[in-house]
């Protein structure tokens, strides 16, 4: 057991190290901006005295290394800074300053995005596994070839193309689902699901194609093994051979595939949220990029990168754990 926990701990350490280095990259990138936070907040008509005062208040006159660790400590305490846009809004309207913090903006949107990703995974995982197994079972048949062309096409199409085709057929021509996902607090689960379904279906199309191809490849790889031939020669039905013999051994690659595709969802979510005006973190990210609201961009980037690294780490660790040779070393 010692070897296994050492490997897992090693991977965990590497993941944390990557996260640390990525945070340095993001911080450095943001610091390459011309001007700084003080000028950005005060705008063009700022007097030099006011700029120096704000710099001193925010600690911007400190050297970059000190500022980096200050920022990292704040982030670890859950303080992601103050949004420029919201700070302006608050100072104009005089409303609650609490709302200007990046955390208050990201929090509910993060929950919405997780809901979207959850619904997508709940549809995509069973469907793609079933289709992948069927394609492996009937490989080189008409079904397999049609599936191959369809998955290749949906992998290569941009997300917004799939999204607009779904809108055209499911929302405009046959009004079954709403084409805009205006989700708000206190919405019933049923209504929420209905509004989330179209973006979730779009993401499902993209992710299913990937997962299905990978599942098919993993199972076909296994079907060449001698024990499968043995099972077949015993007279087992092809379905039973796959479900009883191939599937348990293909579990490791399939778990890997699922985790990798959930990581892929993270980037796909940005475009899809913009198409459906879904109030998630991806849309916030794009909006903030357009108005150069740096603290929000920085925070979103950190969250996306963090989730991506964590899911990849999870895939790594799960594939180690599901390998019996590693779990029971001789």
């Amino acid at each position, binding site marked *: 057991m010692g070897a296994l926990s050492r490997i897992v701990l090693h991977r965990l350490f590497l993941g944390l190290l990557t996260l640390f280095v990525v945070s340095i990259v993001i911080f450095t990138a943001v610091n390459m901006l011309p001007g700084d936070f003080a000028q950005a907040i005060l705008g063009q008509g700022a007097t030099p005295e006011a700029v120096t005062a704000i710099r001193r208040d925010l600690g911007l006159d400190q050297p970059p290394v000190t500022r980096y660790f200050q920022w990292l400590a704040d982030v670890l305490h859950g303080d992601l800074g103050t949004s420029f846009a919201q700070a302006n809004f608050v100072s104009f309207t005089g409303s609650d300053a609490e709302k200007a913090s990046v955390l208050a903006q990201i929090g509910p949107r993060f929950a919405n995005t997780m809901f979207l990703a959850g619904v997508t995974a709940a549809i995509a995982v069973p469907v793609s596994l079933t289709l992948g197994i069927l394609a492996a079972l009937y490989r080189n048949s008409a079904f397999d070839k049609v599936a191959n062309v369809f998955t290749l096409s949906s992998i290569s199409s941009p997300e917004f193309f799939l999204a607009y085709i779904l809108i055209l057929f499911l929302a405009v021509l046959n009004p079954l689902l709403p084409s805009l996902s205006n989700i708000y607090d206190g919405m019933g689960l049923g209504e929420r699901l209905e509004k989330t379904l179209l973006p979730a279906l779009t993401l499902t199309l993209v992710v299913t194609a990937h997962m299905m191809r990978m599942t098919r490849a993993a199972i076909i790889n296994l079907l060449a093994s001698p024990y499968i031939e043995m099972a077949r020669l015993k007279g087992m039905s092809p379905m039973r051979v796959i479900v009883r013999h191939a599937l348990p051994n293909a579990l490791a690659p399939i778990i890997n595939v699922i985790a990798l595709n959930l990581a892929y969802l993270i*980037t796909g979510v940005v475009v899809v949220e913009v198409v459906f005006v879904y109030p998630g973190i991806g849309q916030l990210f794009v909006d903030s990029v357009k108005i150069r609201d740096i603290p929000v961009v920085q925070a979103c980037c950190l969250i996306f990168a963090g989730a991506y690294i964590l899911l990849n780490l999870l895939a790594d660790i799960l594939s180690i754990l599901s390998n019996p040779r590693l779990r029971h070393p001789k």
Partner: protein
Amino acid sequence: MNVVVGLVACVGFLVLAAWVFRFAGRLSGRTYFRDMELTTAFGWMLSVFVAFWGVYLYIFVESAVFFRWAVQGFVVFAIAAWLFRLLGRNLGPGGTRRLFRQMPLTASFGILIILLYAILAIFAGVLAPHGQEEIFAKVNVLPGGDPAIGGDPAHPLGTDQIGRDLLSRLIYGAQNTVGIAFATTLIAFLLGGTLGFLAATLGGWLDQLLSRMVDVLMAIPSLIFALLLMTIASAWAGSQPHLLTIYMILIIAVIDSTRVFRLARAVGGNIVVMDYIEAAKLRGEGMGYLIFKEILPNATAPLLAEFGLRFCFVFLTIASLSFLGVGIQPPLADWGTMVRDLSQFINFAAFSPLTAALPLMAAGAIALLTVAVNFVVDWMLHRSSGLKE
């Protein structure tokens, strides 16, 4: 809910039909039906059902315009691909003839589309009826060219909200979007390929340094990283749209060169241990000779396939960035931006299908090229792996 009930009822009916079909087949006493599994019968029934439904939609449902267009487009492309393959099989030198003889229809379709796009991109200035930045007095002209319903024969696809001809912009989009994506991929390959081969030949600390840097850059999802860097680039570029487009090319090239680096290093690592490299080193050849004369020719096949796939990724990233409004900047015509600007037209699908098809045309133009490149790469990989069906 009704939809779900309907779907379940459909599947149930098909299973029943499949059982009846197999039972009826068994009455004939053929072994094919005796050994048939229910799933296979279900597949047959499903395809028959889909075929009937398609025929019904195509002929009897008046409003299924998009479906009819899709079917017509599919048939036209299939015939064109078949003719193209036939042409390739009977014309030209022996080498290409042999190549075309073993080619599946999907691959010849891919090559045909890539050729069409190349022609469109190179001769956009000649083919487009108007300039891409030319603004006409008539705004929001409907597509179709019928003056009775607000069209104009001079603008077959209509004009946009500030009066630019959409057909011309669609054609120029090939030049800008595809051209920029191609240039970006080239830069990514030059950068990633050179550094990858260098890391593979030199090894040591340079290899370690570059590999760790690439690891870190690859740990951030590429679209997210591109968006972050575009924020900074837009602050640098100020109000010069051309400068921002150049920054975007560089940013995406650097991000994608990390993937090329990985492949080039892996492929190069396998080649540098070969005897002929040892011999070249003993002859006293320089680094440039080693990389370009010894390693590169032996790494062409995987790199070429990677070039196709990388082009697709770059193309999709640029289209997504433009769609999000931070990619290729106006006044350059570009498909991603066009989709975003025209997307509201989709709501008119019931009244004017052609208008609703405008954003889909731009998006479909992107999808068609990536699908085509993928088909060709798929075939190339299949050929070079030596698998013969």
